[in-house]
């Protein structure tokens, strides 16, 4: 199948409360999709579901036989220990896990790839800095460099441009487009609708239930956005069991 991902009546959530409710549809290989919606709409949950961190409450996700190392995931909340004594070079080089694994060596070719990745994100010269000394924007660039090295066919980004300066955003968007050009599938959760309108051809407007999915211009219409805003953010402790049947 040409679809990189297919969602079949997918419901994802926590403790029986759905955060993503009855999502159906597919993401084509090579697509560049923005996932937007109000707070609590289930966007991060959706990405976590795709990565496999949370199992579906109902329905399924088909990943076209992709392995864990075929998915590069940049989460919104990072568990990175900035005080750990590791250089930028070594940190970014971890992106080579897909090819090197636990024991694999890192030879001349791989080293060249690391240097190229650092140059692409504009961090050449920073190789020996410890990660604790990097600014927020520099750290984000470093994470993108790592993503570059991961060389994955499916890339998931959760709010990649939050708290990053506009120059950095421009630079990183170039990389996103490069990935798109390389026919990689990119799904990004974003809150800046201007960026979505100008940079992303396809959008999924999520308000727990899918409100609209398709070409960005159609999806981000005024009435769709209004509908999305009206959805309930909170889990309802007294909610009944969901009766909607799978189609």
């Amino acid at each position: 199948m040409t679809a990189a991902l297919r969602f079949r009546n997918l419901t994802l959530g926590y403790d029986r409360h759905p955060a993503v409710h009855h999502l159906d549809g597919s993401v084509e290989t090579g697509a560049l999709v923005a996932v937007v919606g109000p707070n609590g709409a289930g966007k991060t949950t959706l990405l976590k579901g795709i990565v496999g961190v949370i199992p579906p409450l109902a329905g399924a996700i088909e990943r076209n036989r992709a392995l864990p190392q075929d998915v590069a995931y940049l989460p919104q909340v990072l568990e990175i220990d900035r005080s750990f004594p590791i250089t930028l070079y070594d940190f970014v080089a971890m992106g080579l896990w897909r090819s090197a694994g636990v024991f694999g060596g890192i030879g001349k070719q791989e080293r060249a790839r690391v240097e190229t990745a650092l140059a692409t994100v504009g961090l050449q010269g920073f190789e020996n800095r410890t990660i604790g000394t990097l600014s927020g924007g520099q750290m984000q660039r470093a994470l993108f460099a790592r993503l570059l090295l991961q060389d994955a066919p499916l890339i998931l980004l959760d709010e990649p441009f939050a708290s990053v300066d506009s120059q950095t955003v421009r630079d990183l968007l170039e990389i996103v487009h490069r990935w798109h050009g390389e026919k990689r599938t990119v799904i990004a959760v974003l809150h800046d609708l201007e960026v979505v309108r100008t940079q992303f051809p396809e959008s999924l407007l999520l308000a727990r239930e899918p409100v609209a999915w398709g070409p960005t211009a159609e999806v981000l219409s005024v009435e769709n956005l209004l509908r999305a805003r009206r959805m309930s953010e909170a889990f309802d402790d007294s909610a009944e069991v969901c009766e909607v049947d799978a189609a």
Partner: protein
Amino acid sequence: MYDFLIGPFVEFEFMRRALVGMAALSLGAAPVGVFLMLRRMSLTGDAMAHAILPGAAIGFLIAGLDLISMTVGGIVAGFAVALGAGVVSRMTELKEDASLAAFYLISLALGVLIVSLRGSNVDLLHVLFGSVLALDDATLILIAAFSTVTLFVHALLWRPLVLECVDPGFLRSVSRAGAPTHLVFLALVVINLVGGFHALGTLLAVGIMMLPAAAARFWARDTTRMIVVAVLVAMFSGYAGLLLSYHSGLPSGPAIILVAGLAYVVSLALGPVGGLRRYLVPGRHLEA
């Protein structure tokens, strides 16, 4: 000078053995200590040392002051606690530190119970207090074997070990090596502690693991260098501690750990990386 620094080791075999034993122990315990420190698990060493106790006590009850039985008993108890804590923390809401605390306390209570049931008045903790001055061939070989295994495993699992500390989320997303690596690491903690308690006693074994690591933090910016410094500090502590015990009559185990403690304080004050030196000697800043 020669007589003071080298003489004792030339004259006495037990001094040579003690030195070799400490060197071997340093090679294994120091790297483990560095990783414990980097993973914010510094107190785990102490917890595990207590967890090992009932296992060693059972070994002692079955076969007396025998190397193999006490070692095996200690290792089994340590593994059980580590495994139990790891599994519980991964499968339930309880985090690792709490589940480890729960397990080691249960283990310790069991140890005390077993000792008291036996009826003998021998202070078991004291009997298990090994002495670096009494290392026989079997114990030396045991310590050397543990250290070799430790170094080998560190080299092999370097990447997942580091990644688990720096960015566990990333490790989880690219590989399933995280959980087994963690358990293997805890296993290394256990065997190094067991080896250490034959040489220094359970409580001091933690000292030779954690103090050099803490000292090394102030001398290095990357992990490899940190481990090298820690090993050197540990070896030096062994050497100087033995000399101190020889010339001044202080008990050997505490003397070694005190030297290590002194190394830590000196590193804290004078180490170039992240210590107190910034406040003591500010210095002038660079152009860029």
